[in-house]
Structures are given as structure tokens and as C-alpha cells.
């Protein structure tokens, strides 16, 4: 099995849902339509042997039309092929289906993504914050919450001897 075969299989099975294919980086990357992500992951797991969910995380591109991204890394342990899937969501409707039924490991990874990016995984059994405090009312990894700039000059640090 190689990347060509995977692309061909997915194109056949999901003709309208594979939005973008990129083979230029370190592994095969595919952008998947939001509605089909669970079916694609399930198909990859059952038919193409991608039985290992390496990681699931969020990304935020504030400039894009669909700014919120979810990145899945899957691993076929038998043929040793890694795969990266991306789904992009809009700010107004950050909903996506959960993969917990397919991979139990997705439970906390999705909670972490919700915690930091505010992406809501529908049907998730327990979608609450995981690392931040419960009463936090924003999602801190989004780009609109910048860390303090270390080069700023308007800060008064005289009490700290600087």
C-alpha cells in the first residue's frame, strides 16, 4: 500500500469530500469536508488499516475564511504509513462530529481541542474543559489572545529592578 493507493481509494469512496491533497510535506495530507470526517476516519480504520490515532489537535488561522482547523494524525502500523487529515470550520459554526466511537483515545484529545480552541465535538460523551479551570470563559490558544510581547517598551518594571 502506498499514498497513490490511499488517494485513489478515498477518491472512489468519497468523491466529493476530499477537498485537497498535498504530498509535498513529510506525509500525505488531505483536507476533508467536515460532514464526512467520521466516515473517512472509520473507512481508513476498517478498510485501510489505519488503526492508530497518533494525535488530534486544533489550529487557528485567523486570516482564513474557515479559521478553525482540526488536524488528525493517523498511523497504519502494518505498512508503516502516516497520514494527516485536516478539517476546517467556520467561527460561527465550530461543530464537528466526534471520533470517540472509533478511537477511545480521541476522548481527551477532543476535550483538549475544545478547551483550547472552542471546537465543539457533537455527541462527545463528556465535552468539558480538561486542562484549564472550569470557569474560564474563553479559549486561550486562539490567535486573538496574544502572549505579552517581550519587546514592548511601555511597561513600568522599576519595582523589579529592570
Amino acid at each position: 500500500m502506498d499514498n497513490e493507493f490511499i488517494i485513489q481509494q478515498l477518491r472512489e469512496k468519497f468523491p466529493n469530500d476530499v477537498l485537497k491533497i498535498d504530498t509535498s510535506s513529510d506525509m500525505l495530507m488531505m483536507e476533508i469536508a467536515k460532514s464526512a470526517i467520521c466516515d473517512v476516519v472509520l473507512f481508513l480504520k476498517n478498510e485501510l488499516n489505519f488503526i492508530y490515532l497518533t494525535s488530534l489537535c486544533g489550529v487557528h488561522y485567523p486570516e482564513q475564511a474557515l479559521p478553525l482547523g482540526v488536524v488528525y494524525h493517523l498511523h497504519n502500523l502494518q505498512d508503516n504509513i502516516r497520514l494527516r487529515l485536516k478539517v476546517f470550520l467556520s467561527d460561527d459554526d465550530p461543530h464537528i462530529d466526534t471520533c470517540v466511537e472509533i478511537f477511545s483515545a480521541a476522548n481527551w484529545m477532543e476535550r483538549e481541542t475544545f478547551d483550547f480552541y472552542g471546537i465543539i465535538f457533537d455527541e462527545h460523551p463528556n465535552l468539558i474543559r480538561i486542562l484549564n479551570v472550569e470557569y474560564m470563559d474563553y479559549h486561550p490558544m486562539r490567535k486573538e489572545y496574544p502572549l505579552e510581547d517581550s519587546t514592548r517598551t511601555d511597561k513600568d518594571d522599576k519595582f523589579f529592578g529592570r
Partner: protein
Amino acid sequence: MQQFEAEHKIINPEDFEKNFSTLNLGPTHPATHGIFQNILTMNGETIEDAVQTIGYIHRAFEKIAERRPFYQITPLTDRLNYCSAPINNLGWHMTVEKLLGVASTKRIDYMRIIVMELARIADHLICNSVIGVDSGALTGFVYMFEKREMIYDIYEEICGARLTSNVGRIGGFERDFSPTVIQKIRELLVELPKTINQFENLLMRNRIFMDRTINVGSISAERALNYSFSGPCLRAAGVDYDVRVMNPYSSYEDFDFTIPLGINGDTYDRFCVRQEEIKQSLHLIKSALENLPEGDYHMDVPEFYLPPKEKVYSEMESLIWHFKIVMGEINVPVGEVYHAVEGGNGELGFYLVSDGGRTPFRLHFRRPGFIYYQAFPEMIKGSVLSDAILTMSSMNVIAGELDA
């Protein structure tokens, strides 16, 4: 701003009818070795259910990393799995090198293997000796800790630090191994096997220890894969997935070593797998040290590798590079990489998205402990409280890595 109503399920009203009791294990319990909270539902002495709360030492490393030049992210990785900090450091350096597209030399690779395997031994030593402590055998722990001290002395000799090592640089090492380092490693290669023998004599075939650990906290290979287990916990369940063999990095393909496997995925198997891995790591260090090639201990990447101090004071180019590196003025190529290394307790991955700036656009740490700790309730369901403690210590969950 949206207000979220977060609720941790703690006490189920039905539990009162069934006469279940609720027990708080943690957050600061001496037997959890870190800040973990587990709210257990107990039926007499049997655990019916467990709810974990994590995040007590969350420090937002992924967010901080988005503001820092690449070389300043290395100290953050120290604090993930602090029992084997050098693996995290070198894994991060290799990730950046992969993004830059520079190839390392054999000498750097072999030096890295020596440091990483030392770290793996230190990680396994502490984990296995703590399994002993939690089952009531303190003696072995003291033996092993003496030898861990030797490893920390070697770190100190290599990079000057002990726990949060910050070892190496992007592009190699800051200095070559000194003769003292080589001598200390050779000493360890002689001394450690003796201690391991002593330790195994104490525990490996000890009836009490075996009764306490066999069939305790076991998980099947299928469930372990579903939970994305990695490292010794996955191999104890019988799946031979090791990043060092599957996707060799840093010239691991040059070496001949075996990957120990367990059968039942229980506490005893995890213990045995780690014991055998220590021996394999010793073998790796030995062959890397014997075959250590001649050559430079750093690559030719002036944009990232700090020039030696005497050159900074005497050469204009070196001074410029020094200034640019320290101020973090250098842009990196645009791209995305995922790089995984076999950490002390599993596949440690770095997913790095770069938009060409001086800092990562997004950096995600794939922390093995965070991912497999979610299986803990499933593994302890139906067992007694003392078994839960042993299961937890045998999983080698490190709070720093869990909370990132």
C-alpha cells in the same frame, strides 16, 4: 463571551441506593507521585468507577512556544517528561532540523543515541523502583536511585545540568564529550548491570511481588491500540510498536537491538518490559560508544548553531550570527512536520506548523502519558484500591507531561 457550565461527574445519586461510597484519591496523595486527582466510586473495597481530574500544573507550553524563537523552546520541553528530559530536548532539536532540511552526521547521531538511551534508563529505573515502593519494597528503590545519580552525573558532565537538562543545540551539541564523560559512561556500563541483578533478585521472582502485580491493571492489545497506547505500556500488551524501529531517527537503524514484549499487558509485564529495555539500552550505549565515529560534534548550520565564544570575540561573521541567534532574528522555512521519538514512556511527537516567522505558528506536543492515562478507569475497574495505586505507578504517568 460564552459561559460554559462545566460539570465533573462526582457523585451519582444512584450510588446512595447501592450503598457505594466516594473516595478522593489525590490531588496530593503520596502514592500518586504527582498531582493527580481520582474520584473513585467504591463498593466496599472494590472500585466501581473512577473519574480523573488533570491540569493542576498546566503551564500553557503550546501557547508560550508561539512567542519564542526555536532555541528557547528547548527548556520548555525539559518540563514535559522531566524523568527523561534529554529525550524531549533532542527530539525537539531533530524536529527543527527536519523542518530546516539539514542532515546530521554520524557522530552527532551516535552521541544523541548515547544521551537518549541514558535518559531512557533513568526513566525506567525510577518507574520500576517506584512500582517496588508502592508494593512495599523500599530497598530496591534505594539501590536503583544510587545508579540514577550516576546517570545524572553524566548529564552534568555533558551539559552542566541534571534534571531539566537543556542538552544539545539545534544542529548538534554545545561541546564534545569530554574524557570524563566517556569514563563515567564506562563506569556505569560496569556498575549498572550488577545493581539490576540485585534489584531483579529482590523483585522479579518474588512471590509477594508477583502476587501483587500479575493480572493487576491489565489491558488487551486491542483496547491498548484503541486507546493509542505507546511505549512500554503498549509493548507489555504484546504489540511490537517502537518508534526507534518503525521510523528510525538519529541512526537507530545502525544498531542491533531487540524490543521486549509482554503478553497480558498487566503491571508485571510492564515491569518486566522496562527491565529488559534497560538492558537493551545498555547494549545500545555500549555499541554506540565503541563505534563512535570521528568528526565534528555539530553541523554546519550557522543560522542556528551558536558559534564558539572565542570566534564571537574575534570574527565579524560569528559576532553577527551570535547576535541574530540570541535575539531570535532568524526566519525558518514555511512548512509542517511531524516528528516522533521514542520517549521514556511512549511515542513523543512534535507537530510543528511554521509560517516562515521567527517562532512556530503552532506547536503541538503529542504527550504519550496524556493519551494513555485516559484508560486508567477501565484498567482499575473491579480491582481493589491498592491495585489501583500499583497500576498507576506502573503506567509511568508523569504530571509534567500530562498537563503540558
